[in-house]
């Protein structure tokens, strides 16, 4: 039985290794998550990086020396604006430019409201942070002057400010970055499904469609051995896919300024091992269920459609977890997919877990795999499955 399974396993792997196109899709798909991760994190970091001084080009610096002094005191790097500053703002190479009109000094000394202009492109996400900082500084300056003037006239400045708005922004860069990190478990679990999809559809639905299932079942090999061999080939691809995803994340994390964002996440070797221990057992169950579904499909194409739909299963709890992490309870680890996503998330956040959740999650995956394999084996004894339904 074991030897026959191995024979089937070897044949399926050899067969699929020769299918370059599907092999490439199976192995490229895992790289999508890490690539998105790399791009997003670098963008986030450049938007939010606060230690960088605010650079503010100014037109008409000489008209407002005290404002310039104020801005510089608060760490702004002032410079003369280039001629084509509007173009540059639109193109994104400048975030904002301050215009001080000629009549600024006149209005200022006369005690009227002096106008300055902040030129921005509000459609540019990446400029948002700089614009916000510039505007806050300018408002701060205005408030300070107003307060001084009121004091000079013997009026309590509070009278002029009946209400003061204080903003409590919850979308700190830490939270946004953590939200993105929470996608990592999801992508790992998706890799467990994506890797074996091609083999699972070809090895069952495809086998029947091309008319090689009937001859195959004419061998004295027990159905169970045939199913096991095909399942092992599917699992091998899924394992490869998860390992590639994990390795890619490890490489990417080294190039991502996690600390700049103040994110607390462990991505060292033990954490990687922990995540592997969390997700790899799922490949057993995912592959077995894919085989089961594929056995029902009338054709290779139909199997692919069903298996794509099956990939939504890990996405649902994964998305929910990424948006609002929940406090894991022990029973949740026993739910395949949910359990693995929770485990990987906890490992990544560096929570101490103990062996029990891993054992529970692993056992539930093995249980589901056995169930799916038993059903698939039984299906292969049914005439309507072997000869196709019409």
């Amino acid at each position: 039985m074991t030897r026959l399974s191995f024979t089937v396993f070897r044949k399926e792997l050899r067969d699929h290794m020769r299918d370059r196109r599907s092999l490439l899709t199976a192995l490229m798909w895992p790289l999508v998550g890490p690539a998105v991760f790399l791009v997003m994190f670098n963008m986030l970091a450049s938007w939010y990086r606060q230690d960088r001084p605010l650079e503010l080009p100014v037109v008409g610096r000489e008209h407002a020396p005290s404002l310039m002094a104020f801005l510089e005191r608060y760490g702004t790097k002032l410079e003369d604006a280039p001629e084509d500053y509007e173009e540059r703002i639109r193109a994104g190479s400048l975030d904002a430019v301050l215009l001080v009109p000629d009549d600024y000094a006149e209005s200022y000394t006369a005690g009227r409201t002096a106008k300055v202009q902040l030129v921005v492109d509000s459609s540019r996400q990446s400029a948002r942070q700089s614009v916000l900082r510039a505007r806050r500084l300018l408002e701060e300056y205005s408030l300070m002057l107003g307060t001084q003037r009121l004091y000079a006239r013997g009026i309590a400045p509070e009278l002029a400010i009946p209400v003061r708005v204080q903003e409590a922004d919850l979308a700190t860069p830490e939270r946004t970055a953590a939200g993105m990190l929470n996608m990592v478990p999801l992508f790992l679990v998706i890799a467990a499904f994506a890797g074996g999809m091609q083999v699972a559809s070809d090895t069952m639905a495809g086998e029947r469609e091309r008319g090689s299932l009937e001859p195959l079942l004419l061998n004295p090999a027990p159905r169970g051995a045939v199913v096991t061999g095909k399942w092992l080939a599917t699992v091998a691809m899924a394992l490869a896919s998860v390992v590639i995803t994990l390795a890619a994340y490890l490489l990417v994390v080294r190039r991502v300024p996690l600390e700049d964002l103040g994110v607390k996440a462990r991505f060292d070797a033990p954490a990687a091992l922990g995540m592997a221990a969390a997700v790899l057992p799922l490949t057993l169950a995912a592959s077995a269920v894919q085989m089961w579904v594929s056995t029902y499909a009338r054709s290779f194409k139909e199997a692919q459609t069903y298996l794509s739909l099956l990939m939504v299963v890990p996405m649902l709890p994964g998305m929910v977890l990424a948006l609002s992490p929940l406090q894991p309870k022990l029973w949740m680890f026993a739910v395949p997919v949910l359990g693995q996503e929770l485990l990987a998330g906890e490992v990544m956040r560096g929570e101490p877990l103990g062996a029990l959740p891993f054992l529970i999650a692993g056992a539930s995956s093995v249980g589901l795999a056995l169930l799916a394999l038993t059903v698939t084996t039984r299906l292969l004894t049914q005439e309507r499955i072997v000869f196709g339904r019409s």
Partner: protein
Amino acid sequence: MIEARNLHKRFGPKVTAVEDVSFTAEDGVITGLLGPNGAGKTTTMRMLYTLVRPDRGTALVDGVDVVQRPQEARRALGVLPDARGLYPRLTAREHARYYGELHGLSGAALDRRVDELLDLLDMRDIADRRTEGFSQGERVKVAMARALVHGPRNVLLDEPTNGLDVMSTRAVRTLLRRLRDEGRCVVFSSHVMQEVAALCDRIVVVAHGRVVADGTPDALRASTGKDSLEEAFVATIGTDQGLMQ
């Protein structure tokens, strides 16, 4: 030796594919299962090679009951089934080797056996090519090689010459005679009378799921009182529909 005993198979409440089929195919004899399309030949064959379970009756392959011990029966059978799909990315030799390994062969014994078959089927030149793009004749050769790799005592072939050109058909006939001369039990089904007449030592005529005639070509002619085999068939079946090519 293959003995079919009162095989009966229904699909659903309405369709009776095989009503009652019994016959014996001896070793060293080519037995032809002849009948028009839809007579129940393929279903009968499938019951013999254990992939369809009869509702009533059974069959014995070298004395092994196909219903009770299907796996053991499969060991003694070499089958060219109705579906003869290949793996497009594997070579002809790899097909034969895969099936050989599934039959428990390995090492030098497997190498020797596969080489023998490649010679026997005259497919040395295509042995190490991937089967993608093979002609019908080449595909049948590969299917034959994997069916015979374990040297079965009994050979079942479902419409083996369907879709083949003259040369390939001749090659298949030569092979079947050779298998018979080696003392194997050869059973093949066909809806083409000329095919059966050219090859068979014994003919079992099936119509509407029943055996309507069983015997040597001479005996068939004698029992119907007709001079030509063709007329004998028409007389036994009652119509010539689907038997002539």
